[in-house]
């Protein structure tokens, strides 16, 4: 069946937002604003209370942007390796450091400016073994930028209790006077509350959009999703982001209603796993062109930007349903304490990609359920040398899925170090996989 295809209308809005974002961070000081840097996982609603002119730079998306621009990435990586950074460390982190060490800053369109804009402070979390240390070292490279990292290692959502949440809330609470001291600004709780509402709205809406991709034909393919989900990683507590997601939701919903798909012909539906090798998104194009195969997403694209119910209370089944926003939960947030508690709990409980970080027990169920709910035929896993967190559990998950009868292929690479990717080998894996499943090339048909 031939399907109607049509470019996404709000695509440009997202693109513009991203371009503006990197520019804003660069120019923040000219406008008397504040710059901060930290992980995309950081509790980014908190700095919002410092004012409306507070501009973040999140490290992972920045690292991914570097990786996308090959040549710049190579310079970053080589620069930081000369300073003694080991090659097996997180790919994003090395790009980020390399960018600082070269004193060069990359904008979303690939243009490079000097110097690297130094943040007023680093505000991050410690989710994998690297995050807090990433910014610790960055701070050293920047001659001592004040750095605060929040420990969130309290376990997956379904095991949360008050004391666990309190531990995180207390750290967030301490962060506020710390930020006030550094910036010399007075903290505005109203702005915090607004940001916290916006965050949940943006994340839950992204989850709803992902659910729309269960349709056949799927309205979105993952390569475009990369440009969409990312707003939740760069500035999800900005109310404008939530607005954009609502707009996107409406558009995607109408596509589903009208039977508009992302591909003209959808022969094979699969999921991926891990961040992609950013410098080689042609893997996706190849699968599309040669095999009419569509990637529906991944726990990466769904889970990083989305708020999901996740594990049921007993820890026996994963539920891919959007997490409730404060409104949906019937909660009213009126003060700082409530706001901090909400954002802490929302992130700890509903960030799908924080859950499986604890154990493959969770990741297995999460992945399996995703494949079932979205009706995928298979999964192609990126064994990603660039991120030890995302790469955790992948082989156990592979083993589990194969035993469940789900076809799995794996290829090695690195999300942000182009030198770790072997193109010929990867295409060879894909061809082998498709051929072994009896999926024909469309060019041969």
């Amino acid at each position, binding site marked *: 069946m031939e399907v109607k295809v049509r470019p996404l209308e709000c695509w440009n809005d997202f693109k513009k937002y991203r371009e503006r974002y990197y520019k804003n961070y660069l120019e923040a000081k000219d406008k008397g604003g504040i710059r901060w840097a930290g992980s995309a996982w950081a509790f980014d609603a908190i700095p919002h209370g410092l004012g409306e002119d507070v501009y973040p730079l999140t490290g992972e998306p920045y690292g991914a942007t570097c990786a996308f621009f090959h040549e710049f990435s190579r310079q970053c990586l080589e620069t930081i390796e000369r300073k*003694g950074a080991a090659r097996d460390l997180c790919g994003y982190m090395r790009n980020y450091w390399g960018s600082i060490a070269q004193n060069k800053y990359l904008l979303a369109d690939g243009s490079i400016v000097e110097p690297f804009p130094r943040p007023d402070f680093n505000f991050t979390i410690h989710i994998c073994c690297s995050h807090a240390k990433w910014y610790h070292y960055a701070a050293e490279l920047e001659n001592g930028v004040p750095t605060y990292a929040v420990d969130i290692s309290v376990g997956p959502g379904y095991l949360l209790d008050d004391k666990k949440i309190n531990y995180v809330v207390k750290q967030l609470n301490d962060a506020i006077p710390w930020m006030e001291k550094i910036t010399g600004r007075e903290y505005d709780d109203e702005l915090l509350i607004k940001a916290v509402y916006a965050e949940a709205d943006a994340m839950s809406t992204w989850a709803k959009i992902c659910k729309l991709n269960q349709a056949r034909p799927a309205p979105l393919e993952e390569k475009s999703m990369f440009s969409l989900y990312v707003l939740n990683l760069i500035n999800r507590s900005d109310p404008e982001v939530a607005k954009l997601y609502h707009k996107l939701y409406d558009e995607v919903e109408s596509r589903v209603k009208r039977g508009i798909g992302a591909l003209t012909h959808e022969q094979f539906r699969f999921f991926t796993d891990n961040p992609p090798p950013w410098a080689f998104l042609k893997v996706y194009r190849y699968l599309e062109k040669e095999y009419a195969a569509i990637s529906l997403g991944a726990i990466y694209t769904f889970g990083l930007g989305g708020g999901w119910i996740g594990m049921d209370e007993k820890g026996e089944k994963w539920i891919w349903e959007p997490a409730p926003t404060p409104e949906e939960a019937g909660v009213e947030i009126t003060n700082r304490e409530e706001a901090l508690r909400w954002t802490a709990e929302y992130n700890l409980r509903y960030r799908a990609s924080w859950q499986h970080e604890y154990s493959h027990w969770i990741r297995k169920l999460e992945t399996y359920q995703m494949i079932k709910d979205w009706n995928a035929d298979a999964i192609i896993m990126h064994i990603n040398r660039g991120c030890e967190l995302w790469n955790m559990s992948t082989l156990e998950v592979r083993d589990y899925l194969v035993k469940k009868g789900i076809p799995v292929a794996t290829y090695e690479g690195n999300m942000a170090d182009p030198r770790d*990717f*072997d193109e010929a080998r990867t295409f060879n894996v894909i061809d082998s996989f498709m051929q072994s499943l009896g999926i024909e090339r469309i060019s041969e048909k």
Partner: protein
Amino acid sequence: MEAIQESEYWKWPETVWVDESKNWKEAEVISCGIDLGSVSSQAVIMLDGELYAYSNLRTGSSSAASSEKALGSILEKIGDMKREDIHYIVGTGYGRVSIPFANKTITEIACHGRGANYIYGPSVRTVLDMGGQDLKAIKVDERGKVVNFLMNDKCAAGTGRGIEVVADLLSIPVTEVGPMSLEVYPDDEPEPVSTTCIVFGKSEILGLMRKGWPTNRILAAFFRAVATRVVELLERVGVEPEFAITGGISKNPGVVTRVQDMLGMKALETEYDPQIAGAIGAALFAKALYEKQTGKR
């Protein structure tokens, strides 16, 4: 299955040399250094601290035999010198512990530092030793004493063996791969092969071959990667002028030219064979040790 005869592209020329103008019988101290490397073995004989004779041969599968051969070939060429005439022998290199007749062993790192000081003069501060199996960046003081050093450990790309493997793969003699890679340098230099791991790199090179890349471009991409690795190591240890290269790969202009350009620094030149630097250092240590032992100092 028939074993198919391999062409040996990795072979490089061997040498035995004696300074006929000198008479060893007039020397007070005859010292010898033997550098038993993984790929090559060198023996050097010095008369009162002056280079007299050397050999540079391929290391065989037995270290004892290789060291015998390295020294034996010199003695044979000299004609009337016997091993007993040598006052002190220092062994160095990977195989140093299995040189049966060495009086003492010293690491190749110390020996290359000392040897570079001899052949390039006391102004040398950074020595890059590119040998068969490893890459060393050595910082030395004005006496040639090691101040600091680094060795590659995660990747074998910037090594002689790595280059030999590629020479073999492309069926080009190892002495020619360097010059050939310079045919496209610098104007037409392609991006480096992405990976520096030789195992992975091989499959990438095969891929390039299949894409129909000309051999000189493939080599350029490969040597670019090697040079990057080398420079990385050098910068980690901190390059200071003056800078010199020893070991076998110093004869490979494909690496040397790129490293120099990337550093923006010329390596010192010498009329000696830089591959024997380690053995020279060993021979100089042998002299010092002999003098120490006999109370001459």
